[in-house]
């Protein structure tokens, strides 16, 4: 009966083509019957026609991806979040031209849901394979990468009270991939900075700061060396700042920021920067709070967003129930906030952080001995108590 309720709910709210509907429904049934790791509250599924249920594309990924995605789904069920998951596999398919492309399924799914949660992907080694992460970014014009770095109580690092957000331009800059060998032994790599992209990411940075009650936005650049390119980026940031006078705007050189970051990371709030600096600085900040295993990340596009965990696939512990789902979980919380479902996000985040702070049930990388499922169960328990 519950299955029929799900079907009804689906037919009323979705515009999914038949092929996908068939794909998703058995999956839902399966999950509903299978999820015994957390006592699930299924009331949200039976509210037929409820417009508050939102569908999210889930890309479980490789290695530990499937385990941690399952953990996230279980925790969401326990919290009663109005989310329906649509699993999609993004293993590249060889196209007629011999190159590997993303499968059509992901495009169809994202076109409908406009929201994705992605586990770690392993780029297959070999000819014709481009980085999958890069391909997804290009396909959905994900122009801003947002990484909030907040110190986790219970997971001690030499740096305390870090609470900053790095916002990085995600499409151009040094990663444009335009390189040439001019003569043998001389290579040029082109860094592309455009006004549109810089303005877009600057506007997002200020919007994010406003929506999340942050007081300062800092532009990070190297305009003393790269006068025109970083100069253009800085100009766009300054223009956007002049239209957002309620938020304080500062600008610093990249090396000064790095220097000050390791001495006193508490002085930074929101940082906005071009691609390469953002890559380096966001990983630096992840290192401050404990590494990629606990850092959330989101990619915002004009037409949707994909939130992801940025750690690797950890093939050595895949399938052994040892993985730590914290990074993917915190990214999912970011996603909930982005979808205006902040209250669910807050509850889940609180439960997860409390679990880590109590320190009784922790996975191996956090310093404990619990399994992934035990950790997940503990978080579910906290949500429901």
């Amino acid at each position, binding site marked *: 009966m519950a299955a029929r309720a799900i079907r009804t709910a689906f037919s009323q709210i979705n515009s999914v083509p038949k092929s996908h509907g068939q794909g998703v429904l058995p999956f839902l049934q399966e999950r509903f019957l299978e999820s015994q790791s957390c006592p699930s509250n299924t009331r949200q599924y039976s509210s037929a026609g409820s417009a508050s249920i939102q569908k999210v594309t889930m890309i479980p990924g490789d290695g530990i991806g499937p385990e941690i995605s399952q953990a996230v789904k279980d925790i969401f069920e326990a919290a009663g979040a109005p989310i329906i998951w649509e699993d999609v596999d993004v293993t590249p398919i060889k196209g007629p031209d011999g190159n590997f492309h993303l499968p059509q399924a992901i495009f169809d799914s994202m076109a409908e849901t406009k929201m994705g949660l992605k586990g770690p992907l392993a780029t297959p080694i070999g000819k014709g394979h481009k*980085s999958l992460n890069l391909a997804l970014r290009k396909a959905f014009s994900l122009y801003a990468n947002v990484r909030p770095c907040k110190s986790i109580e219970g997971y001690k*690092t*030499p*740096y305390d009270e870090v609470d900053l957000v790095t916002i990085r331009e995600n499409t151009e800059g*040094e*990663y444009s*991939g335009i*390189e*040439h*060998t001019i003569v*043998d*032994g*001389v*290579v*040029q*790599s*082109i*860094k*592309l*900075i*455009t*006004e*549109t992209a810089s303005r877009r990411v600057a506007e997002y940075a200020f919007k994010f700061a406003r929506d999340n009650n942050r007081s300062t936005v800092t532009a990070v650049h*190297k*305009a*003393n*060396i*790269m*006068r*025109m*390119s970083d*100069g*253009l980026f800085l100009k766009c940031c300054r223009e956007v700042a002049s239209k957002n006078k309620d938020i304080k705007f500062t600008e610093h050189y*990249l*090396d*000064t920021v*790095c*220097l*000050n*970051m*390791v*001495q006193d990371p508490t002085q930074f709030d929101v940082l906005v920067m071009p691609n*390469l600096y953002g*890559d*380096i*600085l*966001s*990983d*630096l900040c*992840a*290192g*401050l709070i404990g*590494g*990629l295993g606990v850092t959330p990340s989101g990619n915002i596009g004009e037409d949707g967003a994909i939130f992801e965990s940025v750690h690797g696939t950890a093939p050595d512990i895949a399938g052994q129930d040892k993985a730590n789902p914290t990074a993917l979980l915190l990214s999912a919380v970011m996603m909930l906030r982005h979808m205006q479902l902040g209250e669910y996000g807050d509850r889940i985040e609180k439960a997860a952080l409390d679990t880590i702070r109590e320190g009784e049930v922790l996975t191996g990388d956090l310093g404990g001995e619990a399994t992934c499922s035990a950790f997940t169960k503990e978080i579910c328990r906290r949500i429901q108590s």
Partner: protein
Amino acid sequence: MAALTRRLLCNTAWRQTVVPSLSSFGNRNYTINATEQQVLSCAKYGGRHCVTLMTGDGVGPEILTHVQEIFRYAGAPIDFETVEINSSTTDAAYLEAALLSVQRNGVALKGNIETKFDDAEFRSMNVALRSRLDLWSNIVWCRSFKGVNARYDDIDIVLIRENTEGEYSSLEHESVTGVVESLKIITAEKCERIARYAFDFAARNGRKKVTAIHKANIMKLADGLFLESCRKVSEDYADIKFSDMIIDNASMQMVSRPQQFDVLLMPNLYGNILSSIAAGLVGGAGLVPGMNVGAKYAVFESGTRNSGRSLKGKNIANPTGMLLASCDMLDYLGHHNVGALIRESVLDVIAQPQHQTPDMGGQATTTDVIQAIIDDIKPKTQTRLHSAE
């Protein structure tokens, strides 16, 4: 004749009584001496070297004045030729005069020159100096200081960075309005040169590991060429372990576990970033010295190249970095005794909390620190017999 004999005796007496012990190399376990070709470029008149002094902006002028003072007290046989060059001397003649001076003297001590990047006509003078003098290697040594408050106390990293090409080529153009291209140039010749320098350095100074930093997974041709050059050179040095790391992973590792690094070999921009991080980890911009070395010339400056604009005139700037750089300069020129003497005093003084400037968490002023260093040096040089007159 009598005066000559007396002077000889004085010199001999001084050399005999002030013999630096091994510990007085401070915490430095290597020196960089001028090569034969470099020695030929160094101006030496009457036993005294002549060094170009470029005061730059910010706290450069005040700190370099203190350096000269300390050199006088320590009896360093250095004469300074001050060249005016800073952000307000935009006329090309000033840059040419500075270059000529360095080419004549072979060695320079430099404060950082600010770049007014909002002014489209303003060219970075620091970059111009480095590329015109072909100072292709930048060496920053980050080692934890005794008595200085920092997150880690067991760091010992030498950062060797390519100093003339890469992202700092200053080749940019606006192809269409609103679209700017900046060129990053990597050449096999320069990569091999810097790699060889790094491995030579490691071999000469007993360093075990050289790690190349790159982003060859994304910039396949450019950083790929850099990595390939480093690998090729590493084959000639079987005793030294060679590894490579991607820059973002390296930054993360640097903040969480910096003890794993020994010698880092990097292209220009990544070198800038990692040097800044490493300097921050050992105590900040005011403490770390840096040197820029080419085939013929050498320029010594602070490791993180900050001008300290906000500290100007307040007498709170930390003179340590510039002083240690000047000690490196003395070593380079072969004046090891004096270099070790000053270095030992500097390190002993800053280890005491009452002589730490605000950037180190203390309350002392620059002049306090300088006076303490002078007071520490004076007894060591009392055997220089002015009293014999």
